[in-house]
């Protein structure tokens, strides 16, 4: 390309500054790179650096070596609690979002009037701020006057405490997230589904394949690259869950819905223990990077396409 450019350059360009031509691409991407260095790279490096200090903005920082990590893993049990909840949350999200998303996508795949409406409706929750979603569900899940318990009572079932019981709080947060995101993931899968040639399904019909068999023998294998991609994004997304927790439960009741980001937030913003928060942040960062490497290392291993 650069060769072609030089060849194609009119004579006039020759006396112009050649240096400029070589510098121009760098100048074009410089602002972008600068923003990323200052607001992504530097904060990450600084976070890792500060994780070895005790620091509260008011007094000078004090080097403590690995002490923050030591306290994180071996002294304070709350970190493991938060980690455990994040993990449970993630597993539930991955399993439910992918299975439900896939089912929904399959279900509204044909282009009919009802399906067109369903697709729009499915997308609606994704547009709205998590904050709003959280408030609406907090209201729906209210133990005394919430609609969910009214429905349960209508069917003569006992009401649940939803967000106010440590047994059901995390599940309730998962329900909210599923409601908000399942349509979105279904639509992503739908666009991949539509890329599968219709003839393959017609051939399967002629081979007298039952719907379940078509699903497992054709649809799932053909979607495997997309499903794998969603697996990674949902996992990474779930590990950084925060907004719903903050509005719905505030990490409670007790610490039953404390998660990693909420944990970091509490130590940093509320308690001003920045060094300690940085140590927790570093661990979150490492976890996310591991997923990212997994994603980049295994791409397209099972891509079947002609």
């Amino acid at each position, binding site marked *: 390309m650069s060769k072609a450019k030089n060849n194609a350059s009119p004579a006039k360009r020759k006396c112009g500054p050649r240096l400029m031509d070589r510098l121009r691409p760098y100048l074009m991407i410089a*602002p972008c790179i600068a923003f990323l260095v200052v607001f992504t790279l*530097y*904060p990450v490096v600084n976070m890792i650096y500060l994780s070895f200090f005790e620091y509260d903005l008011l007094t000078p920082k004090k080097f403590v070596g690995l002490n923050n990590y030591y306290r994180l893993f071996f002294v304070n049990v709350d970190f493991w609690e938060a980690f455990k909840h994040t993990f449970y949350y993630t597993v539930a999200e991955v399993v439910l979002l992918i299975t439900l998303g896939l089912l929904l996508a399959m279900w509204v795949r044909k282009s009919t009037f009802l*399906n067109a409406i369903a697709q729009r409706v499915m997308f609606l929750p994704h547009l709205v701020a998590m904050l709003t979603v959280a408030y*609406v569900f*907090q209201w729906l899940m209210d133990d005394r006057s919430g609609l969910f318990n*009214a429905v349960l009572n209508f069917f003569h079932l006992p009401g649940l405490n939803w967000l106010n019981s440590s047994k059901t709080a995390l599940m309730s947060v998962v329900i909210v997230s599923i409601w908000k995101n399942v349509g979105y993931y279904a*639509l992503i899968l739908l666009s991949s589904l539509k890329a599968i040639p219709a003839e393959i399904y017609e051939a399967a019909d002629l081979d007298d394949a039952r719907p379940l068999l078509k699903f497992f023998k054709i649809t799932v294998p053909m979607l495997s690259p997309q499903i794998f991609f969603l697996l990674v994004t949902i996992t990474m997304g779930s590990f950084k869950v925060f907004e719903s927790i903050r509005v719905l439960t505030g990490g409670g009741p007790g610490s039953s819905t404390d998660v990693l980001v909420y944990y970091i937030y509490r130590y940093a913003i509320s308690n001003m223990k920045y060094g300690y928060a940085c140590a927790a942040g570093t661990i979150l960062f490492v976890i996310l990077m591991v997923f*990212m490497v997994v994603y980049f290392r295994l791409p397209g291993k099972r891509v079947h396409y002609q």
Partner: protein
Amino acid sequence: MKSKTYYRIRRKIIWVIDSILKIGVCIFLAFPFYWMLTTSFKTYTESILFPPTLIPRVFTLEGYRTVFEGLDLGMYLKNSLIILFWIILIQMIVMVPAAYGFSKCEFKGRGLLFGFVTVAFMVPSQVTFVTTFLMFSKMKLIKTLIPQIIPFGANAFGIFLLRQNFMQIPDEMLEAARLDEASELQIMLKIMLPMAKSSLVTIALLSFMSHWNSYFWPLVMTTSDSVRPLTMAIDKLKHLDFGFVWPTIMAGNVLMVLPVVILFLIGSKRIIAAMAYRGIK
């Protein structure tokens, strides 16, 4: 072979069940919106009735009145709009040349630098917020809108989308322009940009929606109301009265959701396509 009536009846039954279930799912997904809207028009006493009423018996604007009286909505809205304006403007200025550089120029380290952009894209703000906060508070900028604007200057998703777009423009077209003695700046602004107009609108739209809805970042980056956006105001509604007054809270949220839903109604096709693309990327 089973008789044809068997298959015909079976198909009809499946169709009926399928339609009913679909309507059910649609209701399940749309109901919270309905609930938010109707609750916002209820009186407080009606809102806490058990079992609740599906349609408000008395329509009242009490909730909305409390929102407008209790909060300086104008200020929060102004903050939101200023933040959005600058974010989108800066993103465009940064994004267009970067996408051009990454798609149409050859230079040493291009792969490496693009790799850096990709990796940086995957580092979420939930990881960087502590040290970013420290950085801004040391610079004494926490009481300004800046911490809510400049960290988002580089929109990696936008760069990917635009780069994809630029790459589809044939090199011959640029070479023809160079033969016509167009400068690189002219090529970018007069040839590349018009061809990517629709992507730019999409990117701006998505950027608008995500920052309009953003809650985490203003929560951790602000310490005073004077710089907080609308989301933070909505978050304050629960403290406006004693306890949770649902009609008031829902009224505030209706106001939050309204612009986004209107945007969606105008450009639902484009938005769905763009979001799906972001999901696949």
